[in-house]
C-alpha cells in the first residue's frame, strides 16, 4: 500500500484517521476506492522537501482528490491527507522528486 512520508505534517495521526473515515462515510461510495482499504491509511506521511519543491504546482494540478494547495502567502505546497487516497500520482509527476511515497504495512 502506498502512502507518503512528510516530516512537516504535524496534525495528530489519530485525528487524521478519524476525519478520513468520516469523510468516506459521509460521501457516497458505490464506486469504491479500489486499492484503498479500511486499515490501510493508518499512517500517511508526506514529504515536501522545500529545498527541492519549486512550487510549480504540477502535483496540485494532477492530484485527483484536490488534496494539494499552495499557501498563497508562503508559496508553500501543502497536502491535505484527509482526502489523499495515496494514488502516487503527485510523487510520480513531480519534476523535482520532492514527494516520496512510502510503503506502509497494514496495522
Amino acid at each position, binding site marked *: 500500500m502506498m502512502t507518503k512520508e512528510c516530516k512537516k505534517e504535524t496534525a495528530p495521526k489519530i485525528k487524521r484517521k478519524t476525519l478520513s473515515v*468520516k469523510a468516506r462515510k459521509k460521501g457516497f461510495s458505490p464506486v469504491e476506492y479500489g486499492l484503498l482499504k479500511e486499515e490501510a491509511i493508518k499512517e500517511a506521511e508526506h514529504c515536501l522537501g522545500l529545498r527541492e519543491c519549486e512550487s510549480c504546482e504540477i502535483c496540485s494540478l494532477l492530484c*485527483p*482528490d*484536490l488534496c494539494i494547495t499552495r499557501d498563497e502567502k508562503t508559496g508553500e505546497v501543502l497536502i491535505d491527507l484527509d482526502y489523499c487516497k495515496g494514488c*502516487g500520482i503527485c510523487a510520480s*509527476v513531480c519534476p523535482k522528486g520532492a514527494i516520496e511515497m512510502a510503503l506502509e504495512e497494514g496495522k
Partner: protein
Amino acid sequence: MVRALEKYIRPGVKSTPFCPGCGHGILMGLILRAIDDLKMDMKKMLFVSGIGCAAWIPSPHYNGDTLHTLHGRALAFATGAKLYNPDLCVMVVSGDGDLSSIGGNHLIHAARRDIDLKVICANNMIYGMTGGQAASTTPRGSKTSTTGEGNPYRPFDLCKLVEGAGATYVSRFSVTQPISLIQSIKKALLHKGFSFIEALSPCPTQFGRRNLLERPEDMIKDLIRRCILEEEAEGLTEEERAEKIITGEFLS
C-alpha cells in the same frame, strides 16, 4: 487545511467517489480551475451529466446546479434546460460510453443544431462504472471484460465524429496536459455554440489493470508519453504514429 478549489465544492461533499488515481478526479479539478480563472458565476451554471463514473464529476461535487440524468441522455436534458433558459451557462460533463455509445445520437444532433452547450467528454476508453466492458472508444486490440481476446472493432475518433456532425469548437487534450486542457475549457466556456472537448482521463481500475498498466502512475506516465500535438505528429512514421494520441484544438 482546505482542499484546493473548496469554494466550488458543494458543502457536505467529502471525498470523491473515484478510485485512487482516477483521471476523472484530475479533470474535476481542471474544470474548476477554468471556471475559477474566468470568474464564472456558479449560480448561473448548470452541469448536466449522464450515468457512469465520469457523470459523477459534476454531480454532486460542483456547487452550482447539477443535473444527473439517465445513461446517455445528458445532452437531451441539457438541450431542454438551455433552450428554455438561455441565461444558464450549461456544461455537460460525462463519460465516453455515456456520450458516444448509448448517447451518440444526442451528441451528433446537439452538434448539428450548434446549441450553446459546453460538452466535456471524460474519455477513459472503457466503461468504468459497470466493470470494464469495451466502449466505442476502446482501442482495437485492448482487453476489456467483454473482449478478452482484444477488442475487434475500431474506436471512434470522437473529435472527427462531432466535427462531421457540425460542432463549432472541437479539441482533445489529456488530463496529463493540464494547462492546455484548462485553456481549452476556457475557450469552450467563451465560445458561443456547441463546444466539444475530449478529455482523456485514465481509469486505472478497469482499463489499466487489464492492459498492463498496473498502477495509477503507470497510466499517467503512459498518457504523458503518448499524447502529442498535431504538429509533433508530422515527422512520425505510420507505426510511431499509431501508438500516439494526437491532441490539440481541431476546430475553434
